[in-house]
């Protein structure tokens, strides 16, 4: 059951914290719906990359070392258009800027970890891993092993991405219209199910509403920048309305 919030209620009565092992496997399990959502993209990437001029080794290496769906797709498009490597690298940089928002949000939680943990968890930071991990970190129990949950979720996502890339390279041509299966909708419903519980206060409702509207308006911006613009607009709207509401309240 992908529900991190079910953990604390069980553990508050327990005196011993949840083990590393349990955290790890719960993370791997909770990210499952987001893995399902990523499957068609992994297969399509493997298929497209190898038919657009990237070598088989290069396609596998890109998934293994870059591990960033959106920038991998954009890179393949740019390779097909004959763009030089430096411009592709710069574009990947811009497309990935949104990860700064994720990592800043995680700073209070990863701060006490060893340098080696920070490297590994940083490498595994994706939209999906962030959504799953921050939910675990925000749960009210004081498990000291929440980074194991993040690791389980991140590794599951990573392994799936490699397998799907391989599947795309090898039998991708035989798999009809992976884009039209609708599996990607699993990500949308999961994210919606994660957003709704946040919307308990007026500022949060305003923040989410503004982010949604701006995401639509800014969608035509290149390099996924619309996402950044929408997120920043949403945060600003939330902070501002919080301030206004506090000012109105009699002291």
């Amino acid at each position: 059951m992908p529900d991190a919030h079910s953990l604390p209620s069980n553990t508050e009565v327990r005196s011993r914290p949840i083990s590393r092992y349990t955290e790890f496997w719960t993370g791997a399990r909770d990210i499952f719906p987001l893995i399902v959502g990523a499957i068609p993209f992994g297969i399509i990437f493997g298929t497209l990359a190898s038919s657009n001029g990237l070598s088989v080794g290069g396609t596998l290496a890109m998934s293994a070392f870059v591990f960033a769906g959106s920038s991998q797709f954009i890179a393949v498009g740019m390779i097909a258009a004959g763009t030089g490597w430096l411009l592709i690298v710069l574009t990947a940089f811009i497309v990935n800027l949104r990860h700064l928002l994720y990592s800043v949000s995680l700073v209070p939680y990863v701060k006490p970890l060893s340098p080696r943990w920070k490297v590994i968890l940083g490498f595994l930071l994706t939209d999906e891993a962030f959504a799953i991990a921050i939910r675990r970190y925000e749960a009210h129990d004081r498990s000291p092993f929440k980074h194991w949950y993040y690791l389980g979720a991140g590794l599951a996502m990573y392994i799936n991405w490699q397998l799907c890339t391989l599947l795309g390279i090898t039998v991708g041509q035989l798999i009809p219209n992976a884009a039209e299966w609708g599996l990607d909708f699993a990500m949308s419903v999961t994210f919606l199910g994660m957003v709704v519980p946040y919307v308990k206060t007026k500022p949060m409702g305003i923040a989410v509403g503004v982010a949604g509207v701006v995401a639509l308006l800014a969608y035509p911006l290149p390099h996924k920048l619309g996402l950044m613009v929408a997120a920043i607009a949403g945060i600003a709207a939330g902070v501002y309305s919080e301030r206004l509401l506090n000012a109105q309240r009699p002291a």
Partner: protein
Amino acid sequence: MNEVLMIAGMAIATFSIRYVMFGASSRLTLSPAILSALRYVPPVVLTAIVVPEVLLSDGTLYLSYLNARLVGAIAAVTVCALTRNLLLTIVLGMLTFFGWQGLFSPLG
């Protein structure tokens, strides 16, 4: 096209962005104002990812009962608001989406 340079460059660019804040985290103390603003990041980012997925089709607004993603999303939000159960939200949202697509897609 130099494949090795491209992939190495992309890997370094991507990892740098993901890691830089983690790497600096032990020397980084976020002010209460920043921490309070960061509480908005998860819901706001997830919303910004989902809304275009659900409401846009080829970049244009698709507001119609024929939009199976929109119907599935409404079902998911309703289930989640009523039950607060994420697994049930995902399952019923997907079932609604696939059911709706099955009902209406053969008609175009």
